[in-house]
């Protein structure tokens, strides 16, 4: 409330010349997905997860070609060798020096000159190659199942929510019944009947898994239907295809992608679980699940057989979960301006 006594010239009191238009926007244009990516990158855990996934994918594709050992070459004279990697073998405490837990250098004992990076299994097969091939199979099953889940789930949930009314009611009844059935039980029963194989496992997972995606999609579409731009489209005369493809699905991509991110670790886990209870893939096909199962039998003597596959499966699951979490946070529009 005090008037400052400053030097105020007369010309300061002339009316101001017109300035810039008041409707400017200062920031550069950012699409929605650019914004999401920016937020995602800031989340260190999620970003780490993404890098891990990329690494594992690359190794799964190129890993088996890295060394000259085959995937199924059996050589009993080289059975049960601990892992040995050049350079790292100088550090005994890491465990890559070819020495087993009793301190015996098995390479010397069996007079082997080559390096087996992850060691060998009880039939003398190179574990490095087998593990990455196994990873390939596991990932393949997981992605296949997730994709089919997505297609069926989006279609079912989308149709149910879009048309609403009695169609929705009916489709929901069916889902309610299906939800009450424990997934793993059904999967087990199906595998019993169909005999384990890549297709049958995938099929079993899909039959129980699509329900989750359908519910999410339905929830999202129902929410979107209330948004006024949908109503606006309708008054403009938009037909159903336009509404679905231009409006509803793009705006549902978020939850769809997140759900898929979480479906994949579930699928990998299920496959490993099946192997563990004896319903997994049969030899000579190897998957992470079968490798873990095999490794388990010799846990006490040769831990390296279980260790690597266990670590890799854990890493895959952790990274997908981290990425899924990160996406969920990044897609949450907390900021409006």
């Amino acid at each position, binding site marked *: *409330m005090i008037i400052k006594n400053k030097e105020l010239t007369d010309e300061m009191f002339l009316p101001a010349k017109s300035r810039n238009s008041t409707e400017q926007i200062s920031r550069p244009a950012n699409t929605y997905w650019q914004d999401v990516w920016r937020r995602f990158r800031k989340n260190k855990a999620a970003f780490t997860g993404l890098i891990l996934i990329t690494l594992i994918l690359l190794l799964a594709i190129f890993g088996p070609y890295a060394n000259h050992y085959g995937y199924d070459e059996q050589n009993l004279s080289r059975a049960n060798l601990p892992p040995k990697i050049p350079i790292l073998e100088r550090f005994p405490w890491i465990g890559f020096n070819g020495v087993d837990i009793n301190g015996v250098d098995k390479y010397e004992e069996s007079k082997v000159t080559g390096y087996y990076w992850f060691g060998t299994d009880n039939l003398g097969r190179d574990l490095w190659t087998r593990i990455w091939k196994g990873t390939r199979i596991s990932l393949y099953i997981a992605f296949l199942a997730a994709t089919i889940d997505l297609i069926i789930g989006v279609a079912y949930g989308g149709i149910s929510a879009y048309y609403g009314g009695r169609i929705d009611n009916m489709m929901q009844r069916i889902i309610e019944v299906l939800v009450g059935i424990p997934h793993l039980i059904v999967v087990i029963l199906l595998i019993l009947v169909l005999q384990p194989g890549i297709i049958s496992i995938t099929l079993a997972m899909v039959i129980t898994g699509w329900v989750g995606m359908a519910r999410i999609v339905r929830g999202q579409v129902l929410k979107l239907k209330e948004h006024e731009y949908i*109503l606006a489209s309708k008054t403009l005369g938009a037909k159903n295809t336009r509404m679905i493809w231009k409006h509803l699905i793009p705006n549902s991509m978020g939850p769809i992608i997140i759900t898929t991110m979480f479906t994949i670790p579930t699928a990998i886990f299920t496959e490993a679980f099946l192997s563990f209870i004896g319903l997994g893939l049969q030899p000579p096909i190897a998957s992470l699940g079968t490798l873990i199962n095999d490794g388990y039998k010799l846990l006490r003597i040769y831990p390296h057989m279980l260790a690597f596959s266990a670590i890799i499966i854990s890493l895959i699951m952790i990274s997908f979960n981290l990425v899924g979490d990160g996406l969920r946070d990044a897609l949450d529009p907390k900021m409006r301006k």
Partner: protein
Amino acid sequence: MDVKNLQVSFDTYAGEVKAVRGVSFHLNKGETLAIVGESGSGKSVTSKSLMKLIPNPPGRITSGEILFDGKNLVTLTEKQMQNIRGSDISMIFQDPMTSLNPTMTIGKQIMESIIKHQKLPKKKAKDKTIEILEMVGIPDAVKRISNYPHQFSGGMRQRVVIAMAISCNPKILIADEPTTALDVTIQSQILELLKNLQKKMETSIIFITHDLGVVANIADRVAVMYAGKIVEIGTVNEIFYNPQHPYTWGLLGAMPNVNYRGEELITIPGTPPDLLNPPTGDAFAARNQYALEIDFRLEPPMFKVSDTHYAATWLLHEKAPKVILPESLNKPGLSLSNEKSKESLMKKTDKRQKLLEIKNLKQYFRTGNKQFLKAVDGLSFDIYKGETFGLVGESGCGKSTTGRTISRIYNATDGEILYNNESIFGKKSDSESQKLNQKIQMIFQDPYSSLNPRLTVADIIAEGMDIHELYMNKKERMERVYELLETVGLNREHANRYPHEFSGGQRQRIGIARALAVNPEFIIADEPISALDVSIQAQVVNLLKRLQKEKGLTYLFIAHDLSMVKYISDRIGVMYKGRIVELAESDELYQNPLHPYTKSLLSAIPIPDPKTEHTRKRIKFDEKLSRNGEEEEPVLREVKKGHWVACSEQEYLKINNKDSEVISIYGV
């Protein structure tokens, strides 16, 4: 209480946002100080800071003093503040739906603060709670003390919130927009309640709002805030009848006064500044048509206009030129009865053609087995070409549903709607349907959900054109989009941006551009301005009026803000419980309301004019009483030329004092 140079900032990932940049005021005992401002002005942050309720991080009080009861609140510890909160100073918030803990009985919630601050034993606390509940007007307090919040209506919940706040006889009550989320009639009840409580308990009230009408009703003194500072402060009469700051002029001019009907509303162009990088000089300068050079360089200090009236504007400096105020600001409180315009309106009505006819419309929604929600229950009225028809009513009366049924988002349960003498329902060929889609368009309420966040502005606006194939090639399409953008007051550069980069007012304009893209004849505006700030509302309303003149559009304007509806409409229909209870021309309706509900509604709207507000009386509407025990359903009857009221035969006869010949009856 005395606040000196309060400054509050928030640390966001983008930097420091200075939400409050030096606020000073004092509060006297037993008075009500209203803090007015729009979104982003800093009023909410200020009020929360008084009780140090700003979460820290990310907010913090960077400097200033809050002197209360001999102490400086800024320096007190959290524990000491806890003793003050709820007992010496208490606060009520805006949304009664979320302000109460849903899993605790209201009795417990009220008793909590009594037990903590007044240290009463449980039994005594319970008695006191019942006493307070009765004081705030909750019937059956003894039984309802063990109810949960969801068992109360919105207005009742707000009373519970007030009960909690006054339970320990606070010296200051801070009310942060407590009536914004309530219907007009409930709002006036709550305002009355607050005034009564103040008289009884001698509490000082700080009332935060953006509604100048409410301010005129309840305040003794007023502080106007903009961009984190108080730009003008004074008694309520001084602010309304002798405002000195251009922003205050803008606010007052942007609100249509029910007693005055003018041509254009004064608008404040542009949007409030970004407080991440506050501009140098006066923050309001960029939008101020009376800005001086110095406004862009130095911040104006507070100039004294009188002992109680201060304003922070360089216009008050002795060297500043004198400014001529626009007409409307100099004559509040005068009612302009435009007899001439009324007559011309009448003549036009006879010659005009009916564009839209609604006959006995019914819209029922299923809410479970065998139960129906009768949103619209026998609605009939006509709309003439070129006019603006206003449809008003409180929440739940069915006005939105009506709009959506006309635009065929819903299919009517029963009744007929004729557009240009053709029914809009029933089997239609594709091309017929398309034509109707072009002719009837709609503008929506929520600027944040009415635009698809994934599409560019150009795609959004052009959607109608894309569907109806109204152009030859891409170039033509973009040309049209640019044209439309400029028509609604935006720039060409905005075409390839995304909705989240725009403010609420701008988004509404994009919505209007979208509706215009298909060259409609009839536009339904469903509460298009309810979600906007007052000064922005004026921009949109002016735009709509201009478009109507330029393109000869017909509007159905749905709203609950009666003053704005009256300003923009030629004729108004009042809806209550799915039916129209009164229909007349705007002036006629306001000067001569006949239906008790209309009277009650009109008496509840706060008018931004302290003199009228303080002398007005509230009229209550009791549905049962007005029926007088009559069995028959009231029907709309024309009582005077162009003025229809829902009443029974007998009432009609009473009103008219004529013989029983009825001129015409709607809906039979």
